[in-house]
């Protein structure tokens, strides 16, 4: 059975371009297009596609919000984000709002067809370039901490209070407290004692640059 595809995009050239590509594929049935979020919702009310290609930018609503709305109302529709923005935040929001994939408008014919088929099979699909964007670095075993945080950490380890640290570093106690909270968050610990013990284990306390300590 052919995959029923519908597109919502306010650029006629994009709609026409994708339509002419997909018409060549016998496995795809073209249901039509909408140019606004409102007309898209009106169409879905009467008929639902298997796969919806959805632009990120629509004149009356953001495609990111519309995606969520459609997935809530019609969970069976698989949505593919369609955009010329190759930016992490857009891709991530779209996926968070239930999209099955994200295709860039400079994608090849194969990519678009593959994306539609993958979405139909309930798989996630990202354009080649889009998936590179999402591939975040995950080397977070030893947390990244700033020099100022290292200083604060060393002074905490010496048993100094927020007030004492603040005076030594010429900052306010609020700021010291912020650094302290960030350190707890970065080491994922609940209190200062575990912070010091973990910092010692990861040898961060030994690597503290002494020059920065003697202000």
């Amino acid at each position, binding site marked *: 059975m052919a995959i029923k595809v519908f597109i919502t995009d306010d650029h006629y050239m994009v709609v026409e371009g994708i339509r002419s590509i997909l018409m060549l594929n016998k496995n795809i049935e073209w249901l039509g297009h909408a140019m606004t979020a409102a007309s898209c919702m009106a169409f879905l009310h009467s008929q639902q596609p298997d796969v919806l290609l959805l632009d990120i930018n629509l004149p009356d609503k*953001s495609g990111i919000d519309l995606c969520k709305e459609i997935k809530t109302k019609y969970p069976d529709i698989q949505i593919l984000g369609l955009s010329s923005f190759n930016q992490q*935040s857009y891709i991530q*929001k779209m996926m968070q709002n239930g999209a099955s994939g994200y295709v860039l408008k400079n994608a090849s014919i194969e990519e678009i067809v593959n994306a539609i088929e993958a979405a139909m099979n309930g798989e996630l699909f990202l354009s080649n370039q889009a998936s590179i964007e999402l591939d975040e670095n995950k080397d977070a075993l030893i947390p990244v901490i700033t*020099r*100022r945080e290292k200083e604060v950490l060393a002074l905490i380890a010496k048993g100094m209070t927020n007030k004492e640290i603040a005076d030594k570093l010429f900052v306010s106690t609020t700021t010291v407290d912020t650094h302290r909270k960030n350190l707890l968050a970065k080491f994922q610990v609940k209190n200062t004692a575990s912070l010091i013990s973990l910092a010692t284990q990861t040898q961060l306390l030994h690597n503290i*640059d002494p020059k920065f300590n003697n202000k």
Partner: protein
Amino acid sequence: MKGNLVMTPENQQAFERSMDMLDSSIRELRRVAHNMMPESLLRFGLDVALKDFCYEINQSGALKINYLSFGLIDVDIDQTVSIALYRIVQELINNIMNHSGASSAIVQLTKSNDQLLLTVEDDGKGFDPAILKSNKGIGWVSIQNRIDFLKGKLDITSKQGEGTSVHIEIFI
């Protein structure tokens, strides 16, 4: 396109070259427009915009930036503050790339209570912050102006050969 038009090979070459130039002009324009006012800043706020900004620099390979943020989930930061801080980070990162010779940097933004704390740090060659008193470049002047406008505090810690840490505190 090629199939539908009668073109001499030279013309076709010129045509393709023109298309290439047009493509690169479009890319350039997008890049310029993006730097003027990144859409993600208006749309998703400071945290996401900074994350994107650092990510793009990382992708370019010019500098490895670690972007970290705390206490900013679902927090709305006033647009004036957002734009100012975004510009400051852009300027500081430009400085790092142009002058410090650093290979990596940290950009960290924290909100706690009414305080926003921005740290930008690099592992470059450092400089003597005292020279800024007598000889400020236009970049530092604009950073200082933006901070003054927000009634914030600027603190630069740097020494020759030991990298630079810039701390900015703003109460919102």
